[in-house]
């Protein structure tokens, strides 16, 4: 009687199948992480747009002052702000250097808040200067994720660029008038904040 031993067959199959399962689980984890980061990027953009809507000024003693206050202007756009890694005209650099916006400007404020949302990953987050519109501004947030290197291959891991856009810059708390930034008499706060405080302290009778 010939007896063919088959004990261990399942183990043999596992040797082939388990790596596939592990790869699937790994891919699932990566997809989950990327999806989570994509949603977080959109939330950050929405939040940044809300701040932009509440704080950007349209009035001051000069055009330079307005640009300084907002942190966005012709010069700032090209030299002071973060680059947009998804902008193909800027080359194929996946990790461009971060910019350095005008201190205490609205742009720096939204950028700091976005970075705070991402914590330790903020090195891989870019907030290009907002695009100022007539009524509504556009804010962009880009999160770069370095994809894991595939084992046993020589190709480096690719980068995933998650881009989110949101819109703000409406007239909130502007009294339907241009919102003024700092003036010679406004002190530490911009003029619009002083007006808001004055309004809150002296409500209509």
């Amino acid at each position: 009687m010939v007896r063919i031993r088959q004990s261990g067959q399942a183990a043999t199959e596992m040797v082939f199948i388990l790596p596939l399962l592990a790869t699937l689980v790994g891919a699932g984890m990566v997809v989950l992480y990327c999806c989570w980061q994509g949603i977080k990027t959109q939330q950050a953009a929405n939040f940044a747009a809300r701040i932009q809507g509440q704080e950007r000024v349209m009035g001051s003693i000069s055009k330079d002052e307005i640009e300084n206050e907002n942190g966005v202007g012709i010069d700032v756009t090209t030299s002071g702000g973060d680059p947009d890694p998804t902008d193909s005209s800027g080359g194929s650099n996946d990790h461009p250097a971060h910019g350095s916006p005008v201190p205490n400007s609205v742009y720096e404020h939204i950028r700091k808040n976005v970075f705070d949302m991402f914590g330790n990953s903020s090195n891989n987050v870019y907030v290009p200067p907002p695009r100022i519109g007539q009524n509504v501004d556009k804010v962009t947030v880009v999160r770069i994720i370095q994809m894991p290197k595939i084992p046993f291959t020589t190709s480096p891991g690719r980068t995933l660029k998650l881009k989110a856009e949101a819109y703000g810059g409406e007239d909130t708390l502007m009294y339907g008038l241009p919102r003024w930034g700092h003036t010679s008499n406004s002190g530490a706060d911009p003029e619009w904040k002083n007006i808001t405080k004055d309004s809150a302290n002296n409500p209509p009778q």
Partner: protein
Amino acid sequence: MPVICNCYFFSGGIPLIPKRLNNRSGQFVPMAMMLMFVGVVLLFAVLNIYRVTRAKLEAQNLADAVASAVASMEASSINFTVDRNEWLNTMYAKNASGNSHQVPNISEANDYNMGESKSKNYAQLVATVNKAQQMYSNAYNRFLGAEGSATSTNAGAGGLKDILQQIDGLNTPDVQVIVYNSNDGQQAADAIGRIIGSQQVPGMPTATSGPNVLTMMQPIPYKTEDVWIKVDGKNRTSLSKLLKQPDGTIGWVHPDWDDPRATMNVKTGGGNKSQQIGAGAVVMKRVHMIRFFTDIYVVAKASAYVVRNSGVTLDPNKPGKPPAHFKPTYYIRLAAR
């Protein structure tokens, strides 16, 4: 791998399990395949959930931006009108010495005694300012696409479309926006939003360029309050009557917060619902699902309102009377959900 099935489960050489049930060949492969299939399906589901969640966030931001932008234009219109009232309160410097041609501030004109000629001139002056207020109000209504405005590039629905065009996220056939500023508009927009959200309408109307905007805007409601003066110390008459105009034509102008035609029931910061001048937006966005799944639509709503007590157009202690000074300081807030 062996294909002959002859595998008994031995325990000291004694078969414990019948051969039919003891066949273990290929046991792991089907289980693993099922696991992998479920895993792949789950991955697809996760990707689709991600797309829908992100589209929801995008649509909500778009709705907030549209509602705020339109409501802030309403606030601008109100501030402009109220500011012209205040012009009529500051025609003379404070404590300026009176002269025979001096006319009263509009807030102090009630029962002011003037000669007939001077009364008519005063009425004409107020009527001129009223006309400017009316013209600016009409201009804002045209920008907002309120009824009575012919649709063109810069007026009617076209005007509102121009304003919203700078929101790039709206300039796609996958997004449709309904803008309204009344309870009727709100109900109609909600109904359309519900239909598109639930029935997954396969195609939405597409504009040739720019955003797909459906406008349900009504003109911003204003009311002109008569000013009553005394002519030659005897006849008490209104400025409207002096110029032979219908009642409520010449005087000081204020937004009519109680006009049901162009106010909405919104939840304000305190959490209570009340009639407010404002604007609402319903944004419907088509979400392209990955293969084998039908596209769906996400719907987001937002309302913004002009904060009623952020400016002053009426004397709070004397209903129907003008305040000592008008304050054109109205601003907007997003309504609570």
